[in-house]
């Protein structure tokens, strides 16, 4: 019977799902499109949340930033679960290989003392920062309106906890598989003066009810912090014989390079929305007024700590540069940053 069947030409009656035909035309859809468009329920919700009776189960009003059509936004990486997880698996595998290489050659032990201190006192404590970033991202995944918007936030949350785990693995490695370095790192996160503005800002973002405000403000930090620690110091590490630092930093720098694509594209979509663009720009400028100086201060305080404790002569200038560069980048996509930019 199988043989007979294969002798017949069976033409498809339909190219894809109706709502994709309506959106993209009558042609076969990509797997990203099938997995991401018109998935979330949009109407006829049965009951109001008891934990927030003022809103519906899915509600565009969980943020002040609006999209006329939530599916006007597309993740430029076109990640749905499968490519996301395949890429993530590669990233972790590649990190594991780096760490193995470093361990085999005892490169962490061979770090110059001040670079060792940068790792233990400034970088590894950021596993808590990443963990806070995870909470902010996963909140966006719950409360955003529309699957193309919430889906990358979900992946970001997963990435952030992944980053926290990678940083923790470095800590475990430094302590020869024991937990002391992580215990120390947590103390630093809680008490080190250089990290407190950062921790304070993250905590305040955890009580911010508008998911998009928290996500954008988080990126104000990310952009400057990743630039300082994983790009600038990576560069310096190569000059200063801190090979292990450079090898590790590269992974985080690469990650942020991919990560920022989806969020910046979302900012653009908000800024250029046909109906809400102007209002969104006003809201985003207000977010920048409130949070950008805080982010710059948090990162600058870390740079000052690195300068003071690890003897860096370039960190402060690098922090200022990255605050200015980030402001410039944001300005191009629709967030006017006026406060917290060094002159």
């Amino acid at each position, binding site marked *: 019977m199988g043989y007979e069947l*294969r002798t017949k030409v069976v033409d498809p009656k339909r190219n894809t799902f109706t709502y994709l035909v309506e959106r993209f035309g009558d042609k076969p859809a990509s797997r990203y499109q099938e997995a991401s468009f018109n*998935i979330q329920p949009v109407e*006829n919700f049965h009951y109001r949340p008891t934990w927030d009776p003022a809103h519906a189960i899915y509600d565009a009003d969980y943020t002040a930033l609006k999209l006329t059509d939530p599916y006007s936004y597309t993740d430029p990486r076109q990640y749905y679960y499968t490519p996301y997880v395949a890429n993530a*698996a590669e990233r972790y595998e590649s990190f594991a290989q780096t760490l193995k290489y470093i361990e085999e050659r005892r490169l962490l032990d061979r770090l110059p003392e001040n670079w060792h201190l940068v790792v233990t006192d400034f970088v590894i404590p950021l596993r808590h920062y990443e963990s806070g970033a995870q909470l902010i991202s996963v909140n966006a995944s719950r409360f955003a309106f529309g699957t193309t918007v919430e889906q990358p936030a979900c992946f970001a949350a997963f990435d952030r906890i*992944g980053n926290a785990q990678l940083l923790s693995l470095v800590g475990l490695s430094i302590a020869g598989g024991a937990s002391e370095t992580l215990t120390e790192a947590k103390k630093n996160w809680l008490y080190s003066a250089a990290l407190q503005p950062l921790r304070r800002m993250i905590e305040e973002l955890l009580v911010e009810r508008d998911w998009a405000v928290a996500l954008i403000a988080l990126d104000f930090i990310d952009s400057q912090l990743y630039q300082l620690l994983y790009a600038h110091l990576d560069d310096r590490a190569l000059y200063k014989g801190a090979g292990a630092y450079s090898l590790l930093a590269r992974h985080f720098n690469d990650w942020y390079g991919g990560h920022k694509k989806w969020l910046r594209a979302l900012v653009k979509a908000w800024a250029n929305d046909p109906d809400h663009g102007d209002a969104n720009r006003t809201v985003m400028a207000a977010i920048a007024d409130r949070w950008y100086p805080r982010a710059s201060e948090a990162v600058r305080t870390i740079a000052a700590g690195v300068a003071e404790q690890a003897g860096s002569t370039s960190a402060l200038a690098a922090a200022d540069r990255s605050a200015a560069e980030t402001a410039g980048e944001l300005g191009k996509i629709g967030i006017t940053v006026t406060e917290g930019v060094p002159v």
Partner: protein
Amino acid sequence: MAKLSMKERYSLLTRDLDWTPTYVDPKDVYPYTRYEGIKIHDWDAWEDPFRLTIDSYCKYQAEKDKKLYAVIDGFAQGQGHLSVADARYFNSLKLFLQGVTPLEYAAHRHFAYLARHLDGPGARFAALCQSIDELRHCQTEIHTLSQFNKYYGGFHDWSRMHDRVWYLSVPKSFFDDGISAGPFEFLTAISFSFEYFLTNLLFVPFMSGASFNGDLATMTFGFSAQSDESRHMTLGLEVIKFMLEQDEGNVPIIQDWIDKWFWRGYRLLGLVAGMMDYMLPKKVMSWKEAFELYLEEQMLNGLFPDLEFYGVRPPRHVEQAIIEKEYVSHQVYWILYQFSFAAAFNTTVPTDEELDWLSASYPETFDRYYRPLWEKARRIQDGGGRFFFQGLPQLCQTCQIPMGFTEPGNPAEIAQRHSEYKGERFNFCSDGCQWIFDREPEKYVQAWLPVHQIYQGNCGGATVPEVLDWYGIEQGSDNLEYLTSPDKASWDEWHAPAALPGGGK
């Protein structure tokens, strides 16, 4: 160097990432975990239900997906849809895509809420993994079933239908009920009741059914999803034990939730019961057998003696479900049969062989109550007609299924219950649904009941064709009788003996 145990290492990589905020009030960081009355004294007592770090999660999941998509692609390229038992089989998949896939998505979204808003980092991490898993399930289901959408009706507008069509308000309202509850009730509802207690009755029939009916693609996605599901089950059981151990005052609250969500879930599974006994051309096992095996044997005899230790008894109204196992599938499919003019799947009178199988599987009830109905339906059909309920049905305010269920033990008498709340009357199909309403009438009065919404003029118009248009149902193709459906016609055409071999491929 001392290698840390899996448990210690896992703890450092997950819950140790947490810290107690000092710049803001921790209560404001986790505002949703105190209003339900559940008391948690020590989140550290949480036992991680599984210990998978992000790197190994991604490794295993990437591997699973690689295997899965290879099967999906191979099946599609080989025109696998032509080799299933019969095109009638696809109706069970239509129901699955319209009714179950959206629930996977809803779970994705609301486990994200738990991953943010539970106070305990161990529990949050487990919820985060489940959130992304559920997205996987939603998407792999869409991708698997997409190939059938290209050839058969009923698949093409599932998400719009889930928001609008009458029988899909049953699963939708079920999940909306969970989402709109607090985090601990949601965990009891979905993690415990649905994922642990009832999941086997949902997935095993569908996946074994797929396997038995030659649908390798669906079987593979189903089993691949189930391999994640075992983690979710472990979470469900841990959640219940954790809450019960934390405070004695939690016990009665959780008992109430177990009672509510058993009945809520059981009513929803009525759709699966009808699917199993009627929509699968080749039967895996009867609903009654599955119920006995998975619910009675494994849960009531296995799980509940364990929970008795904490002072939890088997769910209220479970004895009614046990009585109903003799007939509930017939009642549900009889509803679907006579309302399939308004559904995005086809139904038909069972064949003689199937009628005999049903008689043998349900010796107490089938010949006495249901065979005569099918014989009459067939006589009508033989005379050129088709029996449809020419009107709209009475709906249960709670489960939203047409009120076709009967007095326990008497399949001939439709059960009618009603309650009054603020001077208005509300109708129910059963003691269970009435009890659920009476506990929280403020909630259930909001229900978007499809029949009532049609009568209020909110569903596209006053006539059936207008409503079906609004539903997104392609009339004459998605709906009505299977034997006269385009699905059947294409299937016959594609399987007609070839006079001459056509092309080479």
